[in-house]
């Protein structure tokens, strides 16, 4: 087969592929939103896509590739969000000899402290970049720690028990943050110093490429990871736990690895999210937003394919945004009855999950089943062996 | 009574049976033997619409059974005794019998259960014990009784002798022969204990890798030394003719 024909074939595959069609739909919707709503909507969609792609890719690693029923994704996201809300600002406050103890998170002090830190950050791009990197490292570390802690009891549990336990842990962490003032202010949101302050009004224009860069790095890392021997272990565990352990796989270890790596990435997503919003409200870190939506994104895109995950996040984020923007135009009849059309977001979430399960069990862009060695290489190896003998 | 024609069946995408045709004559004991994995259980599961039928015909008294829901088959007079899990372990023996006769009325079921305890006296002793506490042989008796509860025209028996002590297995086999002889029930039996089954059976099919390798008189299969030793592990030829008679006698004595 000539290389030219090969490329033409590949190109045809892409054109006919579901991924391409989905991208087209996304592009059309984005264009529609741009012309009717303007740049700010597009920017906010893109930022959300970047953040939730990161979180959903981490979920995909654990649920899609390793087969762990991760119903507590929010726990790791909370770890990242709380860590970024609590630690980097305190470090800055320490070096600026401002109060950095328990009082840092109290509402009266925090509201005065953070603008001072922001002023310093806005003065130096090097410091801002350093601060951003510090946030990412701290978030990742906190996530890895929480992931490891969760993996300890989780190893003993099976399928649904595991899922429910992780869900409960996620909820519990939210309540801890809501009640324990000194982490992120309890019921009063704590502000997060802004490493993008230096760009002033163009803040969002910079956040988009920055976040996308981070998301792409994670995407590449995860794609390499799932093709590595470790990634193969993950999939072995997913496909058949019993035969994986019979093949000599240390299930406890592999599961822990998946949980820790996944939690680390999800926490980075959580950290970026609070940097973007500029504050951490513990009560806002719900399992609805950070566990169930990512599950819907993943299921719509494709369980076990990160390209699918990305497209799923994109499509659903656009639809969510459209409900918010056009609620009075499209759903006026609800408003007339005194009903807030924003609740349709839940309906959308539930309906997407149901429709995907009933009609698209493998998602829009299904995972390609690739043999570990392509068939032609296997044939080559066999023929070589035969030649030798 | 039951005709299977050109049946292709399996589970999901896995095909187990290939162009299989068998004929179960009325009032007879048809035995299906063959090595492990030949598709014997799958044959029964396809009749009961538990396995997936890809193509072919299954006719019961002239009507097609394909696509018929499992619980409706019981109403048509087909009783199925699975190999594993053939009693409800959590239910009492009495409840097991009543469940087996689910489509009977209360009075009918009571009478029928009473009859069963007469046929299988061992069940009477344990009538209020949960079936999970019965021994292997008693469970098998209960399973057969549960099959009979339905007043079946056709009984499908799946490897009744599995993991029973030889002497108990022998008794179970005799009960099967007695069902045919005394109750006149048509029986399609899949059996690992090939020699004994072929001795009491009328018609036999040898299944290998999802295809029929032999069909004909049950006794005659025992005289095919090559097939017997290759697929059934039977080395020694049995005596001729008298085997069936002796079973019937033993059966009546054992009562």
């Amino acid at each position: 087969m000539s290389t030219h024909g090969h490329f033409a074939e590949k190109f045809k595959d892409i054109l006919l592929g579901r991924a391409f069609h989905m991208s087209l739909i996304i592009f059309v919707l984005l264009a529609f939103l741009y012309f009717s709503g303007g740049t700010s909507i597009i920017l906010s969609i893109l930022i959300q896509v970047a953040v939730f792609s990161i979180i959903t890719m981490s979920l995909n690693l654990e649920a899609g590739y390793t087969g762990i029923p991760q119903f507590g994704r929010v726990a790791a996201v909370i770890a990242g969000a709380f860590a970024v809300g609590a630690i980097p600002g305190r470090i800055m406050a320490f070096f600026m000899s401002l109060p950095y103890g328990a009082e840092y998170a109290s509402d009266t002090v925090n509201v005065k402290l953070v603008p001072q830190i922001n002023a310093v950050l806005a003065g130096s791009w090097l410091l801002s970049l350093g601060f951003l990197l510090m946030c990412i490292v701290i978030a990742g570390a906190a996530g890895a720690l929480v992931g490891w802690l969760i993996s300890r009891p989780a190893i003993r549990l099976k399928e649904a028990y595991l899922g429910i336990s992780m869900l409960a842990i996620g909820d519990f962490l939210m309540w801890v943050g809501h009640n324990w003032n000194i982490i992120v202010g309890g019921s009063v949101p704590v502000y997060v110093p802004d490493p993008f302050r230096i760009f002033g009004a163009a803040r969002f224009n910079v956040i988009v490429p920055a976040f996308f860069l981070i998301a792409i790095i994670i995407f590449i890392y995860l794609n390499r990871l799932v093709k590595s021997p470790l990634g193969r272990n993950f999939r072995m565990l997913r496909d058949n736990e019993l035969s994986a352990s019979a093949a000599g796989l240390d299930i406890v270890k592999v599961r822990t690895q998946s949980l820790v790596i996944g939690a680390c990435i999800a926490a980075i997503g959580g950290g970026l999210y609070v940097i973007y919003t500029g504050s951490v409200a513990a009560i806002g870190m719900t399992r609805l937003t950070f566990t169930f939506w990512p599950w819907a994104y993943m299921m719509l895109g494709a369980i076990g394919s990160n390209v699918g995950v990305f497209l799923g996040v994109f499509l659903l984020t656009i639809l969510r945004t459209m409900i918010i923007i056009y609620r009075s135009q499209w759903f006026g009849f609800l408003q007339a009855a005194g009903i807030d059309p924003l609740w349709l977001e839940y309906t959308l979430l539930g309906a997407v999950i149901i429709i995907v399960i009933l009609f698209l069990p493998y998602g829009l862009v299904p995972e390609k089943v690739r043999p570990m060695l392509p068939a032609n290489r296997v044939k080559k190896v066999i023929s070589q062996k035969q030649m030798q003998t | 009574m039951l005709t299977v024609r050109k049946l292709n069946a399996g589970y999901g995408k896995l095909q187990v049976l290939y162009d299989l045709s068998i004929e179960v004559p009325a009032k007879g004991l048809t035995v299906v033997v063959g090595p492990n994995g030949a598709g014997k259980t799958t044959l029964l599961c396809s009749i009961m619409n538990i396995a997936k039928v890809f193509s072919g015909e299954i006719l019961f008294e002239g009507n097609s059974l394909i696509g018929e829901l499992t619980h409706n088959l019981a109403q048509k007079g087909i009783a199925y005794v699975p190999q594993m899990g053939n009693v409800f372990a959590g239910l009492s023996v009495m409840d097991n019998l009543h469940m087996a006769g689910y489509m009977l009325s209360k009075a009918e079921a009571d009478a029928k259960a009473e009859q069963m305890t007469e046929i299988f006296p061992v069940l009477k002793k344990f009538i209020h014990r949960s079936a999970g506490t019965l021994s292997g042989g008693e469970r098998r008796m209960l399973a057969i009784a549960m099959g009979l509860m339905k007043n079946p025209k056709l009984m499908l028996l799946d490897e009744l002798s599995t993991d029973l002590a030889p002497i108990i297995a022998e008794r179970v086999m005799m009960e099967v022969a007695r069902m045919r002889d005394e109750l006149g029930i048509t029986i399609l039996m899949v059996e690992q204990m090939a020699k004994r089954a072929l001795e009491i059976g009328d018609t036999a099919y040898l299944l290998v890798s999802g295809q029929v390798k032999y069909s004909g008189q049950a006794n005659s299969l025992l005289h095919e030394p090559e097939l017997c030793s290759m697929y059934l592990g039977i080395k020694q030829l049995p005596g001729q003719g008298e085997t069936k008679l002796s079973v019937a006698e033993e059966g009546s004595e054992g009562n």
Partner: protein
Amino acid sequence: MPPWMSSGLIYASGLALTAGSITLLYIATRTFNFAVASMATIGFYTVYTGVALYGGLPYQYFPLALLVGAITGVICYYGLNRPLLRRQAAEITLMMSTLGYDLVLLSLIQMYADFLTNTYKLFPRRVTMSLYDFELFGDRAAAFILPVIAIGILMILHIFLTKTKFGVAMRATIENPVLAGASGINSDRVYLVSWIISGGMAALGGAFMAMAMTGTPVMGMYTIPLMFAGAILGGLGSIYGGILGGFVIGLTEYAGVFLLSQKFGAWVLGYRMGIPLFIMAATLLIFPRGLSGIPLFKILKSLAGGSLGGEKRGVSA
């Protein structure tokens, strides 16, 4: 009765029903029903709508809550669960499907709350149901009535499952669907009845719980981890275990909060959810199969005559 105890009894009775509902459905259909959260909230709103619009006592609307819960169960069965069961979907898929249903119900509940606010000028987003209760023996009547109703339901269920033909058929199908099908039992109908019973129990449980806590549209969503904790504590093997597990979780939450807040101060209240979860975790570490893994419980179960949920669910092929 001290206030924590009366509230605890009310709340625990509700949690027992919801945990029992989860367990029943799990052993019957392998489905972990997330929608119990919204079903419980729907039960509460049914009763609330009754007392707020038509007056009377909450108790007289309980049958209506049962009915509404059963209907939400039937819808979920026909629309979602049955096609998936036929397809022999994985446990996780079944669980996710009920999550989708739960979110749709949640959105409807929220819209209904908006509707009540605007049309009837009610305040359905923070409801204190105990205001509609009456006094009995110097205490809230609910503290006596609700545990009695819960025990009554348990007894009716027990009689249904052991003495009626269809109840025994349900146990038979749950234990061995293949054999039950071959015996002429229509498993479809068994699953439908499981959804009806568990939907009704979930809705009634929600109506119970609202008598002790503040009724909100997200009430079920916030308490679902505890309902699951109850079911898991009960071992997911028998419906009696589930009901007991829910009761234990509910009562320890109130007792624990009371005891700890006396010792450490009121700040403990914020972490109340941690107490039952801690108990669940501790139990699972000692008895990985929950309460029904405790030998004593097994003995009790066998004394009670027959278990729901058999030893084997294997399908021979």
